[in-house]
């Protein structure tokens, strides 16, 4: 029986190692996949999602993850974040679960589009609520018309909605109708940093855009780059079936711009590559062990994200004349 070593750092900055580990345990032949977690030191939202998605994959193969020697503090944290529940791992919680909906964001799995709004709102409220000094009832800022709470809530809930929308629509094409998404987020007060991740097990960018006329580089990396361009959509013929919603192909472009303006980092993994984009436009592609689906992991400085206005981003992307005949009251 093989025994695997859980990496010490399971986070978005370490995707190569984390995904190699995920692939290694999925290909284990045994029904009980045993991992030594003695070195486990830190897990971020992307790490939580990848572990949960990997356990989901194991379960679909009739296998189960067993973690041994995990340090008590990190085990408590992972239990509180509902990772063990998501992974079907029995864990005797020897602590009291207080209702901490206002300051803690548990890992969440989403399989129904009808739940996107509620899930995104709950996550964003919990995340903003975890930051000291932000009162949802505070007076509106005269310049922006937003309260300090909404200045942060709006970009976060925007990003979460669009990521989940992508996962449960584009991700479900090409024979992946049962694809699901995992979502997690965390505010790190010491660095004033927000990290969030949405990960799915769907068809991936290449699966979604393979037939697109502008996809000249038919690789995972080529498809990831194309997905970021404005008005690139997997149903460009504009024919709507009654059972479908539309798609304008601008969601990821807006999020890329929001990340850029907040000098954050976005990591987009699909297939055999991650494309890492840093605020200011720096791009770093790198190879990973194959991931079936899409990994979207973002990190930003809280204080810079709250300076990002959706309307400014939209106006910057607009390359068409203002519409005539619109009536606003």
């Amino acid at each position, binding site marked *: 029986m093989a025994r695997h070593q859980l990496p010490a750092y399971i986070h978005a900055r370490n995707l190569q190692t984390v995904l190699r580990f995920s692939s290694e345990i999925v290909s284990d032949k045994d029904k009980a996949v045993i991992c030594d977690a003695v070195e486990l030191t830190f897990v971020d939202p992307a790490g939580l999602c990848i572990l949960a998605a990997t356990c989901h994959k194991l379960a679909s193969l009739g296998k189960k993850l067993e973690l041994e020697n995990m340090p008590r503090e990190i085990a408590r944290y992972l239990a509180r974040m509902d990772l063990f529940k998501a992974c079907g791992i029995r864990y005797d919680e020897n602590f009291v679960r207080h209702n901490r909906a206002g300051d803690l964001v548990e890992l969440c799995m989403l399989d129904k589009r009808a739940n996107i709004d509620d899930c995104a*709102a709950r996550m964003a409220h919990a995340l903003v609520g975890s930051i000291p000094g932000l009162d949802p009832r505070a007076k509106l800022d005269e310049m922006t018309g937003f309260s300090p709470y*909404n200045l942060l809530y709006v970009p976060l*809930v925007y990003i979460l*909605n669009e990521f989940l929308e992508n996962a449960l629509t584009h991700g479900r094409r090409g024979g992946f109708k049962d694809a699901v998404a995992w979502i997690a987020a965390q505010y790190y007060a010491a660095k004033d940093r927000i990290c969030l991740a949405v990960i799915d097990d769907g068809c991936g960018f290449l699966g979604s855009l393979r037939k697109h006329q502008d996809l000249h580089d038919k690789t995972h990396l080529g498809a990831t780059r194309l997905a970021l361009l404005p008005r690139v959509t997997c149903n460009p013929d504009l024919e*709507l079936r009654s059972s479908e*919603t539309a798609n304008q192909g601008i969601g990821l472009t807006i999020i890329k711009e929001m990340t850029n303006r907040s000098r954050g980092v976005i990591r987009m993994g699909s297939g055999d590559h991650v494309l890492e984009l840093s605020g200011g436009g720096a791009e770093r592609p790198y190879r990973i062990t194959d991931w079936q689906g899409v990994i979207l992991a973002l990190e930003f400085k809280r204080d810079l994200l709250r300076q990002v206005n959706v309307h400014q981003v939209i106006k910057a992307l607009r390359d068409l*004349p203002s519409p005539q005949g619109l009536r606003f009251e």
Partner: protein
Amino acid sequence: MQTAYLIAEHTKDHFLGSRFRARELREELEVLLARVDEIVLDFTGLVSATQSFIDELVGVLILIHGPDIVQRLVFKGCSEDIRAIIGFVVSSRTEDFKRKNQH
């Protein structure tokens, strides 16, 4: 005849998010559009929206009925975000409609 449609009455949050939810609202608008000349889409109380939501609500109406449908809509109580997104969606879906019908 004109009727008002209060978006906030149909949502739990003060943010408009998914296409799925927008589609439910659009289907109600389609029923109303068959009965009245003009609808006042009232966004009062809503802070912002995704481009996807507004596209599914308004952009798809343009794709189905053509750009003239916008003349039967009045947008009330829009935040700066929602106003900018409506402008973006109406411009681009009008172009899409024209392009599709040229071929």
